[in-house]
């Protein structure tokens, strides 16, 4: 079965500390991988995407993610978070059909 899993529903992190938000998927076909961010009371916006090529993908606002095919993961990282990074983060996967399947989201809270 094809699925997207974000195990952490909430992640609290101190300001200027590093963060990793986890995303795993299950698929029998090749995938494209995405991270979207949703700031409070707003729609989603694309942070970064992996389609092919280098497995380390850099996105906006200092975020990056690494595609690990053997572990079927696409974890999102940032070396030093800021208050403005407070948001909900969604991992999304396309299972070869040009449609996105979203994970359940991880709420990132930055502690001053």
């Amino acid at each position: 079965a094809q699925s997207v899993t974000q195990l952490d529903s909430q992640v609290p992190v101190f300001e200027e500390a590093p963060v990793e938000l986890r995303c795993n998927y299950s698929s029998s076909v090749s995938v494209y991988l995405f991270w979207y961010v949703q700031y409070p009371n707003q729609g989603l916006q694309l942070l970064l995407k992996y389609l092919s090529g280098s497995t380390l993908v850099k996105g906006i606002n200092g975020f990056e993610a690494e595609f690990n095919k053997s572990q079927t993961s696409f974890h999102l990282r940032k070396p030093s978070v800021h208050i403005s990074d407070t948001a909900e983060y969604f991992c999304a996967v396309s299972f070869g059909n040009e449609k996105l399947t979203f994970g359940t989201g991880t709420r990132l809270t930055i502690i001053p």
Partner: protein
Amino acid sequence: IAGITQAPTSQILAAGRRMTLRCTQDMRHNAMYWYRQDLGLGLRLIHYSNTAGTTGKGEVPDGYSVSRANTDDFPLTLASAVPSQTSVYFCASSDDSWETQYFGPGTRLLVL
């Protein structure tokens, strides 16, 4: 450039009533999508349209209908609302490079 606009911003609706959520984009994107966002479930695709004049069913289409008479507009209709349709509804669009979807600000719907 407005991007994607959605109306209304929020609505309280009595069960059994008919409701149309409006979505308009000014980016001339071919593809448009409707998602619902529910706590703990992330975003789920309701209906989509790859181009004007065509529509398709997503993951949770029951109780909803859409039309795509032109490129810019993609209304979502609830023929007879039920409380389980209480949700936040997002419209999105993408151009021919489907990998990036642009989201509207959302419509909060409460069905009583």
